[in-house]
Protein backbone atom coordinates (compact mmCIF):
# COMPACT_ATOMS: atom_id res chain seq x y z
CA UNK A 1 0.00 0.00 0.00
CA UNK A 2 1.52 3.24 -1.15
CA UNK A 3 0.57 6.32 0.83
CA UNK A 4 0.88 9.52 -1.20
CA UNK A 5 2.96 12.31 0.29
CA UNK A 6 2.00 15.66 -1.19
CA UNK A 7 4.10 18.79 -0.98
CA UNK A 8 2.26 22.06 -0.60
CA UNK A 9 4.60 25.08 -0.33
CA UNK A 10 6.86 24.10 2.56
CA UNK A 11 4.48 21.59 4.05
CA UNK A 12 4.08 17.85 3.48
CA UNK A 13 0.58 16.47 3.48
CA UNK A 14 -0.25 12.81 4.09
CA UNK A 15 -3.53 11.07 4.66
CA UNK A 16 -3.62 7.69 6.39
CA UNK A 17 -6.28 5.04 6.92
CA UNK A 18 -6.80 2.23 9.41
CA UNK A 19 -5.80 -0.72 7.26
CA UNK A 20 -2.06 -0.39 7.71
CA UNK A 21 0.21 -3.25 8.65
CA UNK A 22 3.72 -3.21 10.11
CA UNK A 23 5.42 -3.06 6.73
CA UNK A 24 3.10 -0.33 5.46
CA UNK A 25 3.81 1.70 8.58
CA UNK A 26 7.55 1.32 8.22
CA UNK A 27 7.45 2.23 4.54
CA UNK A 28 5.21 5.21 5.24
CA UNK A 29 7.54 6.48 7.93
CA UNK A 30 10.68 6.11 5.85
CA UNK A 31 8.95 7.71 2.85
CA UNK A 32 7.92 10.70 4.96
CA UNK A 33 11.41 11.07 6.39
CA UNK A 34 13.18 10.91 3.04
CA UNK A 35 10.68 13.35 1.50
CA UNK A 36 11.27 15.70 4.43
CA UNK A 37 14.99 15.49 3.81
CA UNK A 38 14.78 15.99 0.05
CA UNK A 39 12.17 18.74 0.04
CA UNK A 40 13.40 20.63 3.08
CA UNK A 41 9.76 20.95 4.16
CA UNK A 42 9.23 22.62 7.52
CA UNK A 43 5.96 21.01 8.46
CA UNK A 44 4.01 17.78 8.26
CA UNK A 45 0.25 17.33 8.28
CA UNK A 46 -1.06 13.87 9.12
CA UNK A 47 -4.69 13.74 8.04
CA UNK A 48 -6.81 10.97 9.55
CA UNK A 49 -10.22 11.91 8.14
CA UNK A 50 -10.52 8.44 6.59
CA UNK A 51 -9.58 6.62 9.77
CA UNK A 52 -12.64 5.31 11.55
CA UNK A 53 -10.96 3.00 14.02
CA UNK A 54 -7.83 3.91 15.91
CA UNK A 55 -6.39 1.05 17.91
CA UNK A 56 -3.17 1.21 19.89
CA UNK A 57 -1.19 0.08 16.83
CA UNK A 58 -2.34 3.05 14.75
CA UNK A 59 -1.81 5.37 17.72
CA UNK A 60 1.76 4.12 17.91
CA UNK A 61 2.37 4.65 14.20
CA UNK A 62 1.12 8.24 14.41
CA UNK A 63 3.11 9.05 17.55
CA UNK A 64 6.28 7.58 16.11
CA UNK A 65 5.92 9.37 12.80
CA UNK A 66 5.38 12.68 14.56
CA UNK A 67 8.41 12.13 16.79
CA UNK A 68 10.59 11.23 13.82
CA UNK A 69 9.45 14.29 11.89
CA UNK A 70 10.20 16.51 14.88
CA UNK A 71 13.68 15.07 15.07
CA UNK A 72 14.09 16.10 11.44
CA UNK A 73 13.19 19.66 12.44
CA UNK A 74 9.61 19.69 11.17
CA UNK A 75 6.46 20.78 12.98
CA UNK A 76 3.62 18.29 13.00
CA UNK A 77 -0.15 18.66 13.12
CA UNK A 78 -2.67 15.83 13.18
CA UNK A 79 -6.05 16.71 11.72
CA UNK A 80 -9.43 15.32 10.78
CA UNK A 81 -10.09 13.09 13.77
CA UNK A 82 -13.58 11.58 13.64
CA UNK A 83 -15.77 12.15 16.72
CA UNK A 84 -16.01 8.41 17.43
CA UNK A 85 -12.24 8.08 17.23
CA UNK A 86 -11.82 10.88 19.77
CA UNK A 87 -14.43 9.35 22.08
CA UNK A 88 -12.92 5.88 22.06
CA UNK A 89 -9.36 7.18 22.21
CA UNK A 90 -10.10 8.96 25.48
CA UNK A 91 -11.91 5.90 26.83
CA UNK A 92 -8.95 3.73 25.96
CA UNK A 93 -7.01 5.83 28.40
CA UNK A 94 -3.57 7.24 28.79
CA UNK A 95 -2.02 9.84 26.59
CA UNK A 96 -2.25 7.86 23.38
CA UNK A 97 -1.71 10.78 21.09
CA UNK A 98 0.97 13.33 21.90
CA UNK A 99 0.67 15.47 18.81
CA UNK A 100 -0.79 18.90 18.08
CA UNK A 101 -4.23 18.51 16.58
CA UNK A 102 -6.71 20.50 14.53
CA UNK A 103 -10.33 19.89 13.61
CA UNK A 104 -9.82 19.63 9.87
CA UNK A 105 -7.27 20.14 7.14
CA UNK A 106 -8.19 23.82 6.76
CA UNK A 107 -7.52 24.60 10.41
CA UNK A 108 -4.58 22.21 10.53
CA UNK A 109 -2.88 24.06 7.70
CA UNK A 110 -3.39 27.45 9.39
CA UNK A 111 -2.09 26.10 12.68
CA UNK A 112 0.99 24.56 11.10
CA UNK A 113 1.86 27.72 9.15
CA UNK A 114 1.55 29.68 12.39
CA UNK A 115 3.75 27.21 14.24
CA UNK A 116 6.39 27.37 11.53
CA UNK A 117 6.36 31.17 11.39
CA UNK A 118 6.43 31.68 15.14
CA UNK A 119 8.90 28.86 15.70
CA UNK A 120 6.91 27.45 18.60
CA UNK A 121 6.30 23.81 19.37
Amino acid at each position, binding site marked *: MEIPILKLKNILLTSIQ*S*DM*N*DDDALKYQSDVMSTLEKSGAKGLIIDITAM*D*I*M*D*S*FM*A*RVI*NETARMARLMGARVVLCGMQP*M*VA*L*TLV*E*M*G*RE*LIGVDTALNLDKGFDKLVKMINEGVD
Partner: protein
Amino acid sequence: MSDIPASGSSGENLEARVEVTRIAHVANVQTKVRAITRILGFPELYIFRAAISASELASNLVYHTTAGGTIRIRGIRKKGCIGIEIISNDSGPGIKDVNMALQDGYSTGPGLGSGLPAVERLMDELEILVTDDFKTCIRSRLWYFCE
Protein backbone atom coordinates in the same frame (compact mmCIF):
# COMPACT_ATOMS: atom_id res chain seq x y z
CA MET B 1 -24.34 -17.96 33.11
CA SER B 2 -27.85 -17.32 31.88
CA ASP B 3 -27.05 -15.92 28.49
CA ILE B 4 -29.18 -16.90 25.61
CA PRO B 5 -27.47 -16.72 22.25
CA ALA B 6 -29.12 -13.96 20.33
CA SER B 7 -31.32 -15.41 17.66
CA GLY B 8 -31.21 -13.26 14.60
CA SER B 9 -34.05 -13.49 12.16
CA SER B 10 -33.61 -15.27 8.86
CA GLY B 11 -30.12 -15.38 7.49
CA GLU B 12 -28.58 -13.06 10.08
CA ASN B 13 -25.30 -14.44 11.19
CA LEU B 14 -24.54 -13.49 14.76
CA GLU B 15 -21.50 -15.66 15.16
CA ALA B 16 -18.13 -15.54 13.53
CA ARG B 17 -14.77 -17.18 13.90
CA VAL B 18 -11.63 -15.65 12.46
CA GLU B 19 -8.20 -17.21 12.35
CA VAL B 20 -5.58 -14.59 13.13
CA THR B 21 -1.97 -15.15 12.19
CA ARG B 22 -1.08 -11.98 10.32
CA ILE B 23 -1.85 -8.32 10.93
CA ALA B 24 -4.00 -8.29 7.78
CA HIS B 25 -6.48 -10.55 9.58
CA VAL B 26 -7.14 -7.88 12.20
CA ALA B 27 -9.26 -5.98 9.70
CA ASN B 28 -11.42 -9.09 9.13
CA VAL B 29 -12.08 -9.27 12.85
CA GLN B 30 -13.10 -5.61 12.92
CA THR B 31 -15.46 -6.08 9.99
CA LYS B 32 -17.15 -9.07 11.62
CA VAL B 33 -17.59 -7.28 14.94
CA ARG B 34 -19.08 -4.26 13.25
CA ALA B 35 -21.48 -6.37 11.19
CA ILE B 36 -22.73 -8.34 14.20
CA THR B 37 -23.10 -5.34 16.51
CA ARG B 38 -24.98 -3.48 13.74
CA ILE B 39 -27.44 -6.36 13.31
CA LEU B 40 -28.00 -6.49 17.06
CA GLY B 41 -28.74 -2.78 17.12
CA PHE B 42 -25.88 -1.43 19.20
CA PRO B 43 -25.48 2.36 19.14
CA GLU B 44 -22.52 3.73 17.18
CA LEU B 45 -20.21 4.34 20.16
CA TYR B 46 -20.65 0.78 21.40
CA ILE B 47 -19.89 -0.56 17.94
CA PHE B 48 -16.59 1.30 17.96
CA ARG B 49 -15.77 0.16 21.50
CA ALA B 50 -16.28 -3.45 20.51
CA ALA B 51 -14.41 -3.06 17.23
CA ILE B 52 -11.36 -1.52 18.88
CA SER B 53 -11.32 -4.14 21.63
CA ALA B 54 -11.51 -6.93 19.07
CA SER B 55 -8.77 -5.24 17.11
CA GLU B 56 -6.50 -5.06 20.19
CA LEU B 57 -7.10 -8.72 21.02
CA ALA B 58 -6.43 -9.72 17.42
CA SER B 59 -3.21 -7.67 17.24
CA ASN B 60 -2.08 -9.34 20.44
CA LEU B 61 -2.46 -12.70 18.72
CA VAL B 62 -0.18 -11.48 15.94
CA TYR B 63 2.48 -9.89 18.12
CA HIS B 64 2.52 -12.04 21.23
CA THR B 65 1.87 -15.62 20.18
CA THR B 66 4.00 -18.17 18.43
CA ALA B 67 1.36 -19.46 16.04
CA GLY B 68 -1.46 -16.92 16.07
CA GLY B 69 -4.88 -17.89 17.32
CA THR B 70 -8.58 -17.49 16.79
CA ILE B 71 -11.08 -14.80 17.61
CA ARG B 72 -14.67 -15.85 18.11
CA ILE B 73 -17.39 -13.24 18.08
CA ARG B 74 -20.91 -13.92 19.24
CA GLY B 75 -24.02 -11.84 19.63
CA ILE B 76 -25.66 -12.56 22.97
CA ARG B 77 -28.74 -11.42 24.84
CA LYS B 78 -29.88 -11.43 28.41
CA LYS B 79 -32.88 -9.83 29.99
CA GLY B 80 -33.18 -6.30 28.66
CA CYS B 81 -29.69 -6.32 27.21
CA ILE B 82 -27.96 -7.08 24.00
CA GLY B 83 -24.35 -8.06 24.16
CA ILE B 84 -21.32 -8.92 22.16
CA GLU B 85 -18.82 -11.49 23.27
CA ILE B 86 -15.31 -11.59 21.91
CA ILE B 87 -13.17 -14.59 22.74
CA SER B 88 -9.51 -14.87 21.89
CA ASN B 89 -7.78 -18.25 21.99
CA ASP B 90 -4.17 -19.06 21.37
CA SER B 91 -1.77 -21.85 22.16
CA GLY B 92 1.12 -20.03 23.69
CA PRO B 93 3.45 -18.88 25.01
CA GLY B 94 0.91 -17.45 27.48
CA ILE B 95 0.92 -14.33 29.63
CA LYS B 96 3.52 -14.52 32.41
CA ASP B 97 1.96 -11.92 34.64
CA VAL B 98 -1.67 -11.09 33.96
CA ASN B 99 -1.71 -8.15 36.39
CA MET B 100 1.28 -6.61 34.67
CA ALA B 101 -0.33 -7.15 31.26
CA LEU B 102 -3.24 -5.03 32.45
CA GLN B 103 -0.96 -2.15 33.45
CA ASP B 104 -0.77 0.84 31.15
CA GLY B 105 2.49 1.04 29.32
CA TYR B 106 3.66 -2.47 30.08
CA SER B 107 4.45 -4.50 27.01
CA THR B 108 6.76 -7.34 26.13
CA GLY B 109 6.28 -6.68 22.42
CA PRO B 110 6.45 -3.78 19.99
CA GLY B 111 3.21 -2.11 21.13
CA LEU B 112 2.38 0.80 23.40
CA GLY B 113 1.35 -1.49 26.22
CA SER B 114 -2.14 -0.12 26.04
CA GLY B 115 -3.97 -2.95 24.27
CA LEU B 116 -5.31 -5.03 27.15
CA PRO B 117 -5.80 -2.03 29.46
CA ALA B 118 -7.85 -0.44 26.68
CA VAL B 119 -9.98 -3.56 26.31
CA GLU B 120 -10.54 -3.57 30.05
CA ARG B 121 -11.79 0.00 29.92
CA LEU B 122 -13.83 -0.27 26.75
CA MET B 123 -15.63 -3.51 27.58
CA ASP B 124 -17.83 -4.45 30.57
CA GLU B 125 -16.29 -7.83 31.27
CA LEU B 126 -12.80 -9.16 30.79
CA GLU B 127 -11.54 -12.54 31.86
CA ILE B 128 -8.06 -13.80 31.18
CA LEU B 129 -7.26 -17.44 31.63
CA VAL B 130 -3.79 -18.88 31.16
CA THR B 131 -3.72 -22.64 31.36
CA ASP B 132 -0.88 -24.78 32.72
CA ASP B 133 0.17 -25.63 29.19
CA PHE B 134 0.54 -21.90 28.41
CA LYS B 135 -2.59 -21.52 26.32
CA THR B 136 -4.40 -18.24 26.76
CA CYS B 137 -8.12 -17.65 26.58
CA ILE B 138 -9.44 -14.12 26.88
CA ARG B 139 -13.14 -13.52 27.06
CA SER B 140 -14.61 -10.05 26.95
CA ARG B 141 -18.17 -8.83 26.78
CA LEU B 142 -19.90 -5.56 26.17
CA TRP B 143 -23.52 -5.03 27.15
CA TYR B 144 -26.05 -2.48 26.12
CA PHE B 145 -29.29 -2.00 28.01
CA CYS B 146 -32.07 -1.65 25.52
CA GLU B 147 -35.28 -1.74 27.50
